[in-house]
């Protein structure tokens, strides 16, 4: 009953590149779309989140692009660094609870 589909499963970029991770959702009732970053052995950490009333949100080097009509959203990481190497999860929820997560994208940023 996966309601959030995430791609790609893994991604390798060079330092300074702009990795893009995409997610698509099914439930039009979803109204909260966060991205989480998870390092090995750690719990996920909230990176950035967006609500459907805006099409883009930037926080530092991280940008979420949101397309409500296509039911898609994506994460862009500008000027990526080796320290950004982690697993990234998109999620969607209605009202902030019953969060549905994507399967995750393992990002590797090479020096």
């Amino acid at each position: 009953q996966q309601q959030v589909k995430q791609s790609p499963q893994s991604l390798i970029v060079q330092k300074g590149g702009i990795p893009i991770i995409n997610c698509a959702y099914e439930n039009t009732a979803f109204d909260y779309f966060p991205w989480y970053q998870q390092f090995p052995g750690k719990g996920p950490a909230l990176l950035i989140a967006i609500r459907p009333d805006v099409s883009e949100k930037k926080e530092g080097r991280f940008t979420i692009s949101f397309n409500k009509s296509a039911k898609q959203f994506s994460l862009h990481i500008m000027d990526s660094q080796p320290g950004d190497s982690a697993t990234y999860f998109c999620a969607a929820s209605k009202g902030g609870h019953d969060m549905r997560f994507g399967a995750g994208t393992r990002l590797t940023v090479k020096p």
Partner: protein
Amino acid sequence: EAGVTQSPTHLIKTRGQQATLRCSPISGHTSVYWYQQALGLGLQFLLWYDEGEERNRGNFPPRFSGRQFPNYSSELNVNALELEDSALYLCASSLGRFDEQYFGPGTRLTVT
């Protein structure tokens, strides 16, 4: 400010036993969520507690249960453990039902 804490860090049980996992939310947070993260997989929603009440549960059998205490801490109980219950169990808390969720480091449960 202390983050979400979970105990124990690791737990090893044999099939058929019961496991109890504990979570302390960020001070002031009233909602607690439990997720299962099987190896290499995404997070699956298990349970949501708010103000001491179970508000929602994911698609898991009844042997997964829990509760929230008056101080908003929570415990997750897994009865009749099966091998496929081996996973990282994550707890998250939020200020209210509509706010961002902050995760703890997780409890690694291994069932042998």
